């Protein structure tokens, strides 16, 4: 037998002895308790007049998307109109966000943002501007067959959602430590009715005032101010269970997060929301500046 056949068999045999990691119960370890460095906070009593539905709108955008600046202006108008009842993030994803020739050679995409848009877009990636709203399937425009809404339908969908009474309410207090460049995030979830399903809590970090180039209707604006840019999911991208789903139950969650050096704390906001752990549909949201 030629020598190389022996080498080939040896090589192949080596491959056949492959590693595999068989995992036994209990399949993991419990999440550590409240970080010792985070001091306890006191949440204010809920004023039932201000307990209203808060809608999460996740715009999918990109630096090469020429029509997206129009959407950004519209988002600003909607934020002015709805105030705290609208929480917004801008996820840079898909081909429109990929870096290309200077000055459009920087990258605002993130692995978490890609995972969110991949999952919700599925195999159909509509043309921007488009957004996920409460991660609900589009029931406004039957021609948009998916979880996305085009710009013309955003206000209609938000109005529809704000008519609903909230199943729960979120309160959030963030305490920033400038020495460690970290913050403690306290979230209290209060249920107002029984929910049929398990509920996850997600916490995202967004950043305003990132200066960079943007295609604005065919022209490149080099000092465009990007707002509400999605930076990271601070927990598992699809959230962690909060362990409650019945009327009048409440749960307080505390986490300590380190900020990355590239993020400017005074420009950061924290968006927290609860969602159905199976369908991933958003139930309630809230948004607060990191430093008030």
């Amino acid at each position, binding site marked *: 037998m030629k020598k190389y056949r022996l080498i080939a*068999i040896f090589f192949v*045999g080596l491959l*056949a002895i*492959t590693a595999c990691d068989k*995992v036994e119960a209990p*399949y993991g370890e*419990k999440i550590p308790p409240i970080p010792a460095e985070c001091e306890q906070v006191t949440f204010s009593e809920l004023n039932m007049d201000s307990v209203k539905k808060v809608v999460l709108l996740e715009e999918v955008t990109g630096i090469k998307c020429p029509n997206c600046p129009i959407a950004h202006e519209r988002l600003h108008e909607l934020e002015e109109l709805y105030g705290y009842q609208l929480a917004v993030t801008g996820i840079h994803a898909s081909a429109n966000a990929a870096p290309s020739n200077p000055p459009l050679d920087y990258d605002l995409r993130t692995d978490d943002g890609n*995972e969110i848009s991949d*999952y919700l877009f599925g*195999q159909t990636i509509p043309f921007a501007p488009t957004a996920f709203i409460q991660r609900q399937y589009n029931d406004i425009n039957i021609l948009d067959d998916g979880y996305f809404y085009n710009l013309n339908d955003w206000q209609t969908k938000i109005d529809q959602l704000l008519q609903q009474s909230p199943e729960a309410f979120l309160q959030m207090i963030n305490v920033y430590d400038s020495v460690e460049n970290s913050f403690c995030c306290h979230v209290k979830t209060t249920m107002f009715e029984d929910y049929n399903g398990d509920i996850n809590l997600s916490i995202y970090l967004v950043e305003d005032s990132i200066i960079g180039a943007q295609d604005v209707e065919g022209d490149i604006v080099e000092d465009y101010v990007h707002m509400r840019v999605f930076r990271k999911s601070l927990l598992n991208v699809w959230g962690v269970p909060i362990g409650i789903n019945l009327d009048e139950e409440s749960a307080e969650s505390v986490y300590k997060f380190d900020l990355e050096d590239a993020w400017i704390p005074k420009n950061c906001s924290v968006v927290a929301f609860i969602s159905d752990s199976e369908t991933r549909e958003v139930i309630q949201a809230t948004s607060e500046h990191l430093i008030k």
Partner: protein
Amino acid sequence: MKNLYKLLLAVVILPANLIAQNVQQGQVHGNFQTDIQYYQEDEDIGATEVPAKLGMNSFANIIYTNGNFEAGMRFETYQNALKGYDGRLDGTGLPHKYAKYTDDDFSVTVGDFYEQFGNGLIFRSYEDWSLGFDNAVRGIRVKTKPFDGVTIKGIYGNQRYFMEFNESIVRGADGEISLNELLPSMEEAKTKIMFGGSVISRFQELGENIIKDSIILDIPENVSAFSGRMNIIHGKINVLGEYAYKINDPNLSNNYIFKDGQAAFVSAGYSQKGLGFSVSAKRIDNFDFRSDRNASPIVNALNLNYLPALTKMHHYTLTAMYPYATQPNGEMALQAELIYKFDKKTALGGKYGTTVNVNYSRANTIKHEGIAVDSVNNAHFEGYNSDFFAIGDTLLYEDINIQIKKKFSKKLKGVFTYMNLAYNQDIIEGHPGAPMVYANIGAVDMTYKINTKNAIRGEAQYLSTKSDEGDWAYGLIEYSVAPKWFFSVMDQYNIGNEDKDRRFHYYTGSVVFVKNAHRVALSYGKQRRGLLCVGGVCREVPASNGITLTVSSRF
């Protein structure tokens, strides 16, 4: 339009000038295809505006062979990718390139390659241009036949992910033994027996913690799958079977459970002149296997394996309107097919003979038995139990169809098809709450040969259903001038839509020119939103209105 013409010149003339050449006893050959679409906004049918107006997908394979040596590359460009293709197919590059040495019993490939172990249950890498799917492996492949009748292969590398490559490492080996070649005593035997076995393993670093029910999951970084297969051929009878097993693979598709996965496929067939019969069955349980555990289950990318759909591939527009997509996390399926040809000059065969094809396909979910929450050992993280032989209650797909092919005279022949369909739109297409689609579909396809060069073909189809968008009617007329020209017009009409304002016509006119290895197809019209599926792997096709040009060539 000027730009379109210049683009056409650039992408057609340059590669079309490449002809098979002898270069010091070496040869260059390959193929090329470009698909260009010009989009018009059409709000009625949901065809959205395309800022660039045009989309283009193109590739060219160039292969050099010289004796035992072969090297090749594929150039691909997406400027922008056609609607319906994943937006990460973007830009221009050489995403596929390789070099290969092959002799009688040894082969080594370095670079990008496609390979399949057995029936593909644990490993298959391939590409399908129409789906925008390519999961080639970049690395090393070795094949050897150390003895007659024994073939061993090994692979090692990373999988392609659109225009890039995934970081996870894939390695595997496959061995196959043909007893008839190995054992002299079986060389002349009428019964041919083959055994095979494979293993595939994926290494992926953990990355960010995955948390479930307040538990940081102990995610396995090495996940392996194993399979064994057998094939027996005796005269006109062919029986084959394969069983595959995957160890714990918590992933996004199965909601990060630690249950093992299983897949089994069996098939038996009988075939002789004028008669063929086959029956196949499969079971899949938690077998979505990808290079990336966090890959979206609804994106066709990074699949390590291939789970075929046991359904007939329908070629008529309305019979193919509701195609089946394999459910990798759980399905049990059955398919039976009978083909019989009534001899010519018999009562049922007529003057020229008549072929009848009857096919039955059915797919159900598998049974799940929940596991009680166990807060001490987290036994419920196994996900569920499922009896191997129990069939789930939910029908996914059922298709009974009969097709008759008959030649009436030297000039006239026809194909007649009837299909009865049950289609679970909720699960197959991911439309929560959508009701089952029950449909009856008929298609008549007649061809009349005017003379040796000219022929005219007509199709008439009708789909009757009370679900989804209601009834559809379809008509096509095609005139061909052999061997080069084909002209056709067709219309697909949503005749039964409950909303009369949405009873749209999707008309198309096309011209196709074929000369030797070159083909140019130009069409104008409307495309309905739908699904394109090949072997159970599907891509969504969005609605569109405009001009489509396809140019392909082999050299």
